[in-house]
């Protein structure tokens, strides 16, 4: 029996709960030097002197101050010290065991892939991929790594993808929802080709580079705005990959939108279809209405789950999107974490719950 089946069906006699797949768990480092074993002397020195050297005003933190230290749940700090998400034993106890997580996909948000120096980005991504594998997957095979790639250097990105292909430690390729250019542009196509050829889905997690303003009208003043506006980067990447014909060129490519909400999905589809009817001559590469590509090639992760004023509208939203398009995510250990037992205020049927908590993700991810 394969390891996948073992983990999904574990403890059937003692634990009847569903083995859940969590598509969004954030790993952190115990110390800033954790990457050193995987870096050459040059990049160890660089990291010490310049850190990741990303876009944005601060040397060592994001632009918009959060509401909790390290953006994390206050109860997620490991008793043995270190940052939340840095201690495998505590992740296991607080999240994997407590919630019966069969697989968790690691989504590092540690700036490796958005270093302004593309050579640095390549070195940091390779190191961070190895760090995820050794620190998390090896001691706890329920935790699966993301292949981080230097997305603005497609040759190096493809090399990294190919070097991880077939390794069960890696479940997907991760990109930030903000890239230097709209994601559908051809400069990124080698990444899509490599993803499709090697059976990796692509997880777009909100965040990424800050090389352009969060809005067409500039920079918001508050985190309350920025946090919400990140959703819009997801809408744009979806529109971009559809309109540039990415799914026409790579019909088996799967893109999962992580932490970008999903209530906007149906309305973006209607809007694209409405205006595509008038302007379809501009995008002859599309052979179907834009909404159809969204329906076949895009998945939505649940957290932070939508909370309609009328709770039943959540069911309507799932229906508009398609039940098979939704995958559960917790965002552990972040402050706005969604508990799989309490995330939605409506009663889902057993079949619906099974799709969202487990089966849909099995159609997308590669747990080898």
């Amino acid at each position: 029996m394969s390891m996948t089946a073992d983990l999904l069906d574990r403890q059937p006699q003692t634990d009847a709960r569903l083995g859940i797949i969590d598509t969004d768990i954030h790993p952190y480092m115990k110390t800033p030097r954790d990457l050193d074993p995987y870096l050459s002397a040059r990049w160890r020195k660089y990291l010490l002197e310049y850190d990741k050297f990303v876009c944005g005003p601060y040397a060592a933190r994001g632009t918009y101050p959060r509401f909790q230290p390290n953006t994390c749940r206050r109860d997620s700090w490991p008793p043995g010290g270190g940052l939340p998400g840095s201690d495998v034993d505590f992740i296991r106890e607080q999240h994997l065991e407590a919630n019966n997580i069969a697989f968790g996909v690691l989504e590092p948000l540690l700036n490796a892939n958005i270093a302004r120096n593309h050579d640095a980005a390549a070195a940091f991504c390779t190191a961070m991929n190895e760090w995820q594998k050794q620190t998390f997957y090896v001691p706890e095979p329920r935790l699966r790594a993301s292949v981080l790639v230097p997305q603005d250097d497609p040759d190096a990105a493809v090399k990294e993808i190919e070097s991880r292909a077939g390794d069960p430690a890696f479940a997907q390729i991760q990109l930030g929802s903000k890239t230097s250019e709209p994601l559908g542009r051809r400069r990124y196509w080698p990444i899509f080709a490599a993803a499709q050829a090697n059976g990796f889905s692509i997880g777009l997690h909100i965040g990424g580079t800050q090389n352009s303003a969060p809005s067409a009208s500039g920079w918001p003043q508050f985190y309350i705005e920025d946090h919400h506006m990140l959703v819009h980067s997801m809408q744009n990447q979806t529109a971009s990959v559809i309109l540039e014909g990415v799914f026409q060129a790579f019909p088996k490519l799967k893109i999962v939108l992580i932490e970008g909400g999903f209530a906007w999905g149906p309305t973006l589809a209607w809007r694209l279809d409405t205006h595509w009817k008038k302007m379809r001559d501009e995008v002859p590469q599309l052979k179907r209405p834009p909404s159809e590509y969204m329906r076949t090639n895009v998945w939505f992760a649940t957290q932070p789950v939508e909370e309609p004023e009328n709770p039943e509208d959540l069911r309507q939203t799932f229906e508009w999107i398609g039940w098979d398009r939704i995958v559960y995510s917790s965002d552990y250990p972040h402050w706005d974490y969604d508990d799989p037992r309490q995330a939605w205020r409506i009663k889902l049927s057993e079949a619906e719950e099974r799709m969202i908590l487990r089966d849909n993700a099995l159609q997308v991810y590669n747990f080898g």
Partner: protein
Amino acid sequence: MNDPASAVIDCDIHPSVPSVKTLLPYMSEFWQESFVARGIDGLDLQSYPPGAPISCRPDWRPDKGKPGTSLDAMRAQALDPFRLGVAICNTLYGGQIAVSETMGAAVCSAVNDWIAAEWLDKEPRLRASIVVPAQAPLLAAEEIERKAPDRRFVQVLMPVACEMMLGRSYYWPIYEAAVRHDLPIGLHAGSMYRYAPTSTGWPSHFLHDYVAHQQTFEDQLLSLVSNGIFVKFPTLRVVFIESGVTWLPGFIWRAIKTWRGVRAEVPWVKQSPAEIIRDRIRLTAQPLDAPPDAKSLDRIIDQIGSDEMLLFATDYPHWQFDGDEPLPPGLNPGLIRKMRHDNPLATYPRLKETLQ
């Protein structure tokens, strides 16, 4: 005109400035000489290239020249067939997006005087928005003061994407002037293009650019609410023109959720964003980016949660619908009546002077 008490009010109609030459009679000698000597023309918006499908419905496109430049055509294609009692002219032209503060102001002033003389004076069904140089808020406030005494101007018009987020204190002089004259602020789709149209850069296609405007409306709504604009200006109303509408419920849900989580950052926002938005934001329902079935549209309307927010508009001559019916099928007749008359009247207080 039909019975004024039930007149159909079109909240977004677009006369076009044929060329800078048209505006010269409404400019000072300095600007007349500048535009002529420097050969400056072609100030149409990148957001609405005159030849693009969005800029004119195919059966309304004139044989020659730019769409929207003929009052006779507007009468024959919009005012008469849609039996409009009143239509609000929203002129989109280069003054609103110029990088030069003073040139922008000169063009905006000329547009306002031109629209009064060549459209409002000739057609009693028309009203207009005061176009302002939002890139120069003090000059914009002066322009509002200058034109507000003409009661046919019913709104202040700005593009939705400007040089900064619209909640910033930089813009408050504009809101102060608007409130002083009981004029709503109209934000129309369109960009100054000071920043990339999306947070992930410049899309390849106009279609994407146009669709992405919806997000800029959302961004500005967050900015206006979070910066406490509706607390500071308790009578201010903002009209979102050509935003697409159906994005609103999902936006409201997320705005409530985020506000619950981090409202400590903006302690002056004491009401739920949902209440503020339903009270102070109005949206023209053209386009209405509707789902393919009437039942789903009905659900969306229900989720919007207010029958007072939507305003009827044709968006003439922009291409948003075909045939004779501007609204998608499935809207209930009571809502349609409110959209066509009651809601515009409540949004634009000056309309009551002639319609009640």
